[in-house]
């Protein structure tokens, strides 16, 4: 699989007088994990929002060479550009299974033949949907019994995992992850790292917004650092994280290893 090349070109976003994003560009090769770092409020989430079509932006977004610049958000998602949320969307009255099934049918949503075909549907689709949901939960190391649990009963960390599962239900070509590790326990983070690498290995392109440096170091091939909406720097992970401007703006002094931002000595890799 070599699909999933995401190219972002000169994206700018402003809210009223506030320029939240100023001409940010990135080329992300298929199957790679690209990190997006920056201080709070530097525009990382806004960049994801612009890429997936939630906020109006200028600049270009292309997936596999096809321009999505003018496409509405759901069309972008339909063409394989999926995302998770920094604070997962609370849908208190759905169960996990329902939420996952919401994520299930991104390609080819056709209300018309749906309406005409209504009475002909059988339970097979439902069954297979359930199977998929189970498989996806399993992939993320979540228990199958979770399917029946209402979203409102989930703890924050599990909720983040379920949100990722929802995005995975759609077989993303490109997956935009917004701080997936926040709120997760260290065990889950370790597992998450494995999943990210596994996804990348299978050809999914990932754009990862993170504050958890060990995770970034472990999974990202390249990173882009934003500051005040501008692209501060960009390059191979290890290289960028030692650049002085990055240390100053984002990491804080003595950040490279001396502050235990997360458990350091974890066994690398996952599965």
């Amino acid at each position, binding site marked *: 699989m070599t699909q999933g090349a995401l190219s972002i070109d000169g994206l700018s976003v402003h*809210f009223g007088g506030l320029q939240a994003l100023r001409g940010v560009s990135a080329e992300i090769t298929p199957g790679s994990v690209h990190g997006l770092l920056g201080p709070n409020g530097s525009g990382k*989430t806004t960049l994801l*929002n612009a890429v997936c079509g*939630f*906020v109006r932006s200028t600049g270009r977004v292309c997936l596999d060479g096809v321009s999505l610049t003018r496409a509405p958000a759901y069309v972008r998602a339909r063409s394989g550009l999926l995302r998770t*949320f920094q604070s997962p969307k609370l849908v208190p009255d759905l169960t996990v299974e329902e939420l996952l099934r919401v994520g299930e049918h991104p390609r080819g949503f056709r209300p018309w033949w749906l309406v005409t075909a209504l009475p002909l549907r059988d339970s097979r689709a439902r069954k297979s949907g359930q199977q998929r949901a189970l498989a996806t939960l399993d992939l993320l190391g979540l228990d199958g019994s979770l399917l029946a649990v209402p979203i409102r009963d989930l703890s924050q960390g599990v909720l983040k995992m379920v949100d990722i599962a929802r995005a995975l239900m759609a077989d993303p070509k490109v997956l935009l992850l917004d701080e997936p590790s926040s709120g997760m326990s260290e065990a889950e983070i370790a597992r998450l790292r494995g999943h990210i690498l596994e996804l990348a290995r299978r050809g999914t392109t990932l754009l990862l917004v993170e504050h958890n440096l060990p995770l970034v170091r472990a999974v990202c091939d390249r990173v882009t650092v934003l500051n005040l909406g501008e692209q501060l720097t960009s390059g191979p992970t290890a290289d960028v994280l030692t650049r002085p401007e990055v240390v100053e703006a984002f990491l804080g002094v003595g950040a490279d290893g001396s502050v235990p931002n997360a458990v350091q000595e974890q066994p690398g890799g996952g599965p």
Partner: protein
Amino acid sequence: MTLLLQTLVSGLAAGVVYGLIALGFSLVYRTSRVINFAQGDLAVLAAYLAYTLRQLGWPVIVACVVGVLGTGVVAGILERLALRPLYRRPGAVAILCTVGLAIVLEACIRLIWGSLPLSLPSIASTSPWHLGGLAITPLQVSMFVVGLAIAVMVTLLIGRTRSGRAMRGCAQDPEVVVLFGVNVDALYFSSFVIGGLLAGVAGILIIPTLGLTPDIGLNLSVLGFSAAVLGGLGSIWGALAGGVLVGVITNVAAVYVSSSYASGFVYLIMAVILLVRVRGLFGDEIEAVREV
């Protein structure tokens, strides 16, 4: 020209009163996110209470004030009995419950006072002063003055104070404001009581020109609700502006467009305004925030 002015004047006076009802809607909404469709019937109740006190020989002003206070009490009772259990249910439940309360109120009024129209003397005369072709009644003037005065009072009371902030916080995240020591139940209760008082004042002001019958509550509620939405739910001055707008457009439409479609025209304008400003004229306070 005088015609236009006259239209504006009468629209303005009625509009301020609608604004008061709308203010009640907004106040309740900005604390509890409930739209209290019993507002109109509370207005009617105040008028009936005042009527009875008048019959007992109380002076007009005293009767009116006590009537309004009584309405506040009833609003409080209704909140405690019927609405308190519902805040945490889906929004439509509480709203429909207020509709139920409106029906109950109207039915009770009908049982107590009968369905024959009564006449409540207005607090000021309705025979007009003529100002160069313009007819203005003392009642209109007093509607305007009282309406504005009360709006100012409400603004001062809750616009910039601690409890005003607590109310807005409460509407958006009732669970979290208790963490700062806000007594949410008390806040809901007082907002309903104040809403009832505002409705009461509106009732006392406008019902003398409408005639006192048990059934006008629904109409007042719809007008007040429209005004509140138009001005932006939860916004104090928005409610007043919405009320004035509803009053003025209704009149202008009836005179210059078509009397039979006047109310339709008002709704059309409201729809257009809402399409342009989806949260009403001043209503971005509570809801307009980023969603992702």
